[in-house]
C-alpha cells in the first residue's frame, strides 16, 4: 500500500496536527524510519514507515492542523512501482480503510435503537437435590467434620486434587478443617504455604490452568483481600478471555464473616463481593449436610468456586446422610420450612438468626416460608420468586453490609419478576453500615439479630 495515512495514536484520537516532515520527496525509506511528527493536544508522536520505498509525494504540508485520522498524507512507492501505477490503486484502495470505521459507526448508529439486539442472558436452571434412598442412615456431625470428610473423599477420588494454604498440613488446619489430611495424603498433596496469599493464590490458579484441581484454603477470607486480584482477574475471567480454552477448575475456601470480637479487619462478609463476579461460582452453606455435599460439588466443578464457610458454624452439628457419594447440586436453594404468609430468605450464618426467628414467629401464628440460598452465584431466583408469588412478602437476612448486598439483589429481582405479587415492600435485615466494632456491645449491635428479623416480618405482614 503506497499511501501513508494519518494514524490514530491513542484510543480516542480523531485528528491531529502534522507538525513536521522528517523526509522529503525522493528520500529512500525503510521499515521503522521516522517519516513525520504528529501533534495532538496530549502529545507529540512519530509516524514510522512500515514499507520500503521512495517518498514520491507529500500530500499534506507540515504545519497543517486538524488532519483527520486516516487521511492520506504521503505516497511511498515500493521498488519497481511507478507513480502512474500507484495512482490507480491509491484511488481505489485508500478510501476503504479510511471509511471502514466510519461505515461501522454508521451501521452501529442504525442498529442502535434496536436495543433488543443484545441477546438475552441464558436462564440458569438449577437441578433438584438427589433423592436419598429410603431408610438412609443419618449421622450427626459438625460442619467441621462434614467439610473434612468432603475434602478427604475428593482427595481419594481424584489424584489431581490437592490442598494448599497456611497451616493446612503439619498444624492440621488453623480451624482443624484439614485435620488428618496430611497423614493420609502426604505432603505432596496437602501443602503448607508461606504467608503469601497473593503468591499462592496465583500459583494455584496457574496449576489449575495446567489441569490440576487445587483447593486453596485461606485462613480467613479477610486475608484473601491480598489475593483477590488473582481470584477475579486471573481465575474468574480466564475462560472468557481465552474464548473458552483455558479453565481454572479450583476451589478457594475458608471462614468468612464475623467471628467474635476480632475487630474490623477480621470480621467481614464477602458474599456480595464475590457474587458480583461473572465466571465465579459462590457457595455459602449453613448446614453440615450442605457443607459436605456442596464442597464435594465445588471440588468437582470445572469452574473456579469461592466457598464461604463461617467460623462460628464450624462447631454446629447437623445430620448428614451416609451415602456412598453425597454430592449436592450447585445453584439450588433449599426450602428449610414451607409456609404461606411470608418468605424469609437467608444463607450461611444469617440462617441461624432466620431459623430462630422462624421458630418464634411460627409459635406466634405466622406461617413462615424459610429459604436457604446455599449458592449465591448462580442465584436460584426461581425458588425465591415462586415463594414470593405465594406469600406476597419478602424479608432477606444477611450479615453483610446493606448497599449492594445479596438482599439488595433479591429485592431487585423480585421487583422485576414478581412486582404485582407484592403486598408489602421487601425488607432487608443486614449487618449495619459500619466497619465491625471491637467492643462487645457494639459488635452485637452491628450484627443482625433474631429480634430484627421478627420485627421485619411483623412489618411486612402488618402485624406490628
Amino acid at each position: 500500500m503506497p499511501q501513508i495515512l494519518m494514524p490514530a495514536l491513542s484510543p480516542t484520537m480523531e485528528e491531529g496536527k502534522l507538525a513536521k516532515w522528517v523526509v522529503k520527496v525522493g528520500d529512500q525509506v525503510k521499515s521503522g524510519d521516522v517519516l513525520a511528527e504528529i501533534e495532538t493536544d496530549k502529545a507529540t508522536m512519530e509516524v514510522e514507515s512500515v514499507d520500503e520505498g521512495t517518498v514520491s509525494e507529500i500530500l499534506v504540508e507540515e504545519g497543517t492542523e486538524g488532519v483527520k485520522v486516516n487521511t492520506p498524507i504521503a505516497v511511498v512507492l515500493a521498488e519497481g512501482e511507478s507513480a502512474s501505477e500507484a495512482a490507480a490503486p491509491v484511488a481505489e484502495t485508500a478510501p476503504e480503510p479510511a471509511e471502514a470505521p466510519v461505515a461501522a459507526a454508521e451501521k452501529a448508529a442504525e442498529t442502535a435503537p434496536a436495543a433488543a439486539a443484545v441477546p438475552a442472558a441464558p436462564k440458569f436452571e438449577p437441578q433438584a437435590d438427589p433423592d436419598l434412598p429410603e431408610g438412609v442412615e443419618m449421622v450427626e456431625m459438625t460442619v467441621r467434620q462434614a467439610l473434612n470428610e468432603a475434602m478427604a473423599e475428593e482427595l481419594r477420588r481424584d489424584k489431581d486434587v490437592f490442598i494448599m494454604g497456611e497451616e493446612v498440613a503439619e498444624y492440621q488446619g488453623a480451624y482443624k478443617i484439614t485435620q488428618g489430611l496430611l497423614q493420609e495424603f502426604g505432603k505432596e498433596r496437602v501443602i503448607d504455604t508461606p504467608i503469601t496469599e497473593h503468591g499462592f493464590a496465583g500459583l494455584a490458579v496457574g496449576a489449575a490452568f495446567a489441569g490440576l484441581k487445587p483447593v486453596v484454603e485461606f485462613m480467613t477470607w479477610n486475608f484473601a483481600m491480598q489475593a483477590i486480584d488473582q481470584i477475579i482477574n486471573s481465575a474468574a475471567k480466564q475462560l472468557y478471555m481465552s474464548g473458552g480454552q483455558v479453565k481454572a477448575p479450583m476451589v478457594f475456601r475458608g471462614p468468612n464473616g464475623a467471628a467474635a470480637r476480632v475487630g474490623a479487619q477480621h470480621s467481614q462478609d464477602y458474599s456480595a463481593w464475590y457474587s458480583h463476579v461473572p465466571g465465579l461460582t459462590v457457595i455459602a452453606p449453613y448446614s453440615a449436610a450442605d457443607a459436605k455435599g456442596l464442597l464435594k460439588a465445588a471440588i468437582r466443578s470445572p469452574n473456579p468456586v469461592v466457598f464461604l464457610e463461617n467460623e462460628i458454624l464450624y462447631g454446629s452439628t447437623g445430620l448428614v446422610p451416609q451415602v456412598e457419594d453425597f454430592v449436592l447440586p450447585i445453584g439450588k436453594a433449599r426450602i428449610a420450612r414451607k409456609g404461606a404468609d411470608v418468605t424469609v430468605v437467608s444463607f450461611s450464618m444469617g440462617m441461624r438468626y432466620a431459623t430462630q426467628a422462624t421458630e418464634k414467629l411460627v409459635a406466634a401464628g405466622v406461617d413462615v416460608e424459610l429459604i436457604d440460598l446455599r449458592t449465591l452465584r448462580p442465584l436460584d431466583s426461581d425458588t425465591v420468586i415462586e415463594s414470593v408469588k405465594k406469600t406476597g412478602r419478602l424479608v432477606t437476612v444477611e450479615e453483610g453490609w446493606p448497599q449492594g448486598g445479596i438482599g439488595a439483589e433479591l429485592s431487585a429481582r423480585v421487583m422485576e419478576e414478581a412486582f404485582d405479587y407484592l403486598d408489602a415492600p421487601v425488607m432487608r435485615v443486614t449487618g449495619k453500615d459500619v466497619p465491625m466494632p471491637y467492643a462487645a456491645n457494639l459488635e452485637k449491635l452491628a450484627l443482625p439479630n433474631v429480634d430484627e428479623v421478627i420485627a421485619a416480618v411483623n412489618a411486612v405482614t402488618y402485624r406490628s
Partner: protein
Amino acid sequence: MARKATATKAKTQPNVPQFTQEQELEAFREMLLIRRFEEKAGQMYGMGLIGGFCHLYIGQEAVVTGITMASEKGKDAQITGYRDHGHMLVMGLDPKGVMAELTGRQGGLSKGKGGSMHMFSNEHRFYGGNGIVGAQASLGTGLAFASKYTGDGSVSITYFGDGAANQGQVYESFNMAKLWNLPVVYIIENNKYAMGTSTERSSATTDFSMRGASFNIPGEQVDGMDVRMVYDAAQRAIEHARSGKGPYILEMLTYRYRGHSMSDPAKYRSKDEVTKYRQERDPIEQVRARLLEGGSITEEELKKIETDIRAVVTEAADFATNDPEPDASELWTDITIKA
C-alpha cells in the same frame, strides 16, 4: 557477554556461542516475523482497526526467539504479561489468529473476546497474555508446580518486566519456587523502562539477576539483543530447571524501540538513546550481518525470506480486517462451564 551473578557458585561462561547457519536463519526468520507483524499491528492501530492498548515487542525480538529455540515446543509452558504478540508467533501460533484477536474478530485466538493482552493456547502451552503487572509470576510458578506434581518433565518459562520485578507477589513466588524446587525459569525482560519510569527511578537495585539471591536462586545477566547469548543462557537455565534443581533467573538486557503502548509518545528518553540501540544493537541486523559475512548466503536469499514474511503478515492483516466480528451470542458464552 553473559555473566553469572549467582547466589551459588560462580562459573565462568564461555565466549560468545556460535550458531550454525541453520540456527541463524531460524532466528532471522522468527525475529523478522515479529518485527514485521508488530509494524503492521502499529499501522492497523493507526487506522483504527485495533483498539484499546497495543504493546509492541519491536526491539526485544531476540529474547523470546532465543529462549523458545532452547525450549521444547509443545511441552514447555510459557506465560508473559501484556507485551505478548511475539511470544505467540515464535511458539508457532497462527499469525492470522493473533492479528484477528488484535482486531477483535471471530477468528481471533480468543474468538475476539480477549484482545491484544489476552491470548492463550492449550495446544502450544501458552498461558497468556496477562494484563495485571506481575500476576504471571505467580501463575507461571503454578505451571511449574503442576509440572512437578504430574512429573511431566516440562519447564515453565515465565516472563515479566523490570517494572513487574518490584511487585510483592514476585518474591512470594520466588520463595515458593525455591522452597519446593519447582521447574521454572524466570525471564526478566529488562527494557529499562516500566512504562515511563526508568529502572534507576523505580528500583533500589537495578541488577535484577540478583533478585533471587536471598532465596538461593541463581541468576544471570544476559545480552538480550544478541539471540545467541539468549539461546545459550536459556539452554543452561532450562536444563537446570528440568533436572530438578529448581528455579533460575535470566535477566535479559533489552530495549523496546516504541513507546510502552501505542499511545505512549516515549518522551522520557532521548532520541539518541533509541537511535543508538537501533543502529548499533538491533537483534535482526546483527544476524543479517553475520549471515552475509559468512558468505554462504546472499543478499537475494535474505530478500526472498523478507518477501515471504511480508506476505505472511499481509495475509494475517487481510484476514484480521475482513473476518467478521464475533456473533452477538458469544456475549454469553465461556463464562462458566456447564458441569
